[in-house]
């Protein structure tokens, strides 16, 4: 006869009432966990916390990418430049993943996600207006005209953040000289590609597409003004304005029009997209000026991407010694 196992001590016996509530307990526990998870997930989703961070992209080595950059052979790159800042450059990751390019989406991470939609070749640029002869140029032809220079510039966004970017490009002034502006050419107007297939943000009329920008001719021919085709020694990615964009480091970043397809020399001041959209917030000149605040925030300081503490913003973004003379006699508060 088998022996019965000893009875457990009475203290270990589950009270009957509790035993019968086990089901209730489990149900409540499940509902509790479900509520917490649903509320948490909902809140994170509503505040954009669930947005996936785009995969890290490696820069394409010269000449090996799908983009034959800039011509078949590796170009000679002139550096250093007398305009270089010795401040440490912002990481490639941040330069290519924190962008304002509304044609590729409104969030800072959208451009990196959709940048590959831009087909950088073949690419033609029209040069029209007050020039000796109007031209339609293949980008690679244009790139054969000038040696590429590396320029390590500060970039100050109107939103009070900044970066240091090693651009690759050629002076806009060199191109203008070559196309021979007429004596009536007082301004230079730029236009971004208009193609919602490559720039899906253009399906939404957030701004009046295509994006246009403009410079006074003396600004455009200043040696600091660059047409950039690369950064960090590599061809530009879509999010940075592939295949060719403007860089004017003494002005707020939005002046640096991206993915340019047309350059027109004009007698009258051209339109500029943000200036047209909100003239009280974004001026035509848009020179970096710590004394002229944006209506909604101060421009006196900025956050350098990668740094915690703000730093003071410098007049003309620190390029005053080079460009301040362009604006002698102008009221910079009036003409912001």
């Amino acid at each position, binding site marked *: 006869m088998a022996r019965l196992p000893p009875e457990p001590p009475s203290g270990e016996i589950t*009270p009957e*009432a*509790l035993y019968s*509530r086990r*089901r*209730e*307990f489990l149900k*409540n*526990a499940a*509902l*509790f*966990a*479900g*509520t*917490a*998870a*649903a*509320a*948490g*997930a*909902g*809140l*994170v989703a*509503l*505040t*954009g*916390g669930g947005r996936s*961070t785009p995969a890290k992209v490696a820069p394409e080595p010269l000449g090996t990418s799908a983009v034959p950059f800039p011509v078949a052979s590796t170009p000679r790159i002139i550096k250093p430049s007398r305009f270089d800042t010795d401040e440490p450059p*912002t990481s490639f*990751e*941040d330069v290519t*993943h*924190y962008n304002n390019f*509304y044609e590729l989406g*409104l969030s*800072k*991470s959208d451009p990196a996600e959709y940048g590959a939609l831009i087909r950088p070749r073949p690419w033609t640029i029209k040069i029209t207006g007050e020039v000796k002869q109007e031209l339609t140029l293949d980008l690679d032809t244009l790139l054969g005209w000038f040696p590429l220079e590396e320029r390590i510039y500060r970039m100050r966004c109107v939103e009070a*953040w900044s970066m240091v970017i090693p651009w690759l490009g050629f002076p806009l002034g060199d191109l203008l000289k070559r196309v021979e502006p007429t004596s009536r050419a007082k301004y230079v107007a730029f236009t971004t590609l208009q193609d919602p297939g490559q720039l899906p943000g253009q399906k939404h009329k*957030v*701004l009046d597409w295509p994006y246009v920008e403009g410079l006074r001719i003396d600004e455009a021919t200043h040696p600091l003004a660059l047409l950039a085709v690369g950064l960090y020694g590599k061809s530009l990615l879509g999010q940075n304005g592939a295949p060719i964009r403007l860089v004017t480091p003494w002005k707020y970043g939005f002046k640096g029009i991206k993915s340019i397809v047309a350059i027109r020399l004009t007698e009258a001041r051209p339109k500029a997209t943000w200036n047209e*959209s909100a003239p009280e917030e974004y001026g035509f000149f848009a020179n970096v000026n710590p004394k002229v*605040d944006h*209506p*909604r*925030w*101060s421009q*006196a*300081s900025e*956050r350098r*991407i*990668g740094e*915690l*503490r*703000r730093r003071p913003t410098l007049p003309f973004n620190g390029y005053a010694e080079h460009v301040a003379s362009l604006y002698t006699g102008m009221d910079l508060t009036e003409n912001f």
Partner: protein
Amino acid sequence: MKPAQNAATPLLFPRGPLPWLKPGLFLGSLIPVVSLAIGTARGTLGANAIAEGLNRLGLLALIFLVASLTCTPLKTITGAVWPIKVRKMLGLYAFFYAALHLLTYAGLDQGLDFKAIFSDIVKRPFILVGFSAFVLLIPLAVTSTAKMVKRLGFAWWKRLHRLAYVAATLGVVHFFLRVKKDVTEPTIYAGILGALLAIRIAAWGVERRARPA
């Protein structure tokens, strides 16, 4: 089966129906803080982590404020009592996130530069509106306890807490002023807020008409 009523059921399961609701919401409402903390530690908040944190905390404050204002109309429409049971907690979470938002702005974004903060508040409607919304939430948080309801008297307490609508409206205006161009999101919150207010006004009208002359 009857709801748990035994002393052996711990804090997690208070008496009454839906014992899981309040603790579940309480825990879930803290998850965004955890998500932000993990994001900060792992460096996945993007290149401008402070701006990202600031945006998320501000939006959370607005979401909780709107959620707390949904409770009464929800009860009016459905007759369910549970929204009222979580209303105070949602309101306090709105205050909690608004405080974190303000602290992030003052401490991390401005680096406790009080001169800059003060001039921001007086010079910029965008900042002033947001700051005012937070200031309005302070008396509401302070008077959120049952004791305070008693001290003020329910009628006065109710009147005072209508300020939540003013705070939420200021919050939505702050949001509108924040965005550069795309007003879709602020418009959605403005719509919800408008609808909630409309329901209250309608319910108030019905109540008045029902009252004997």
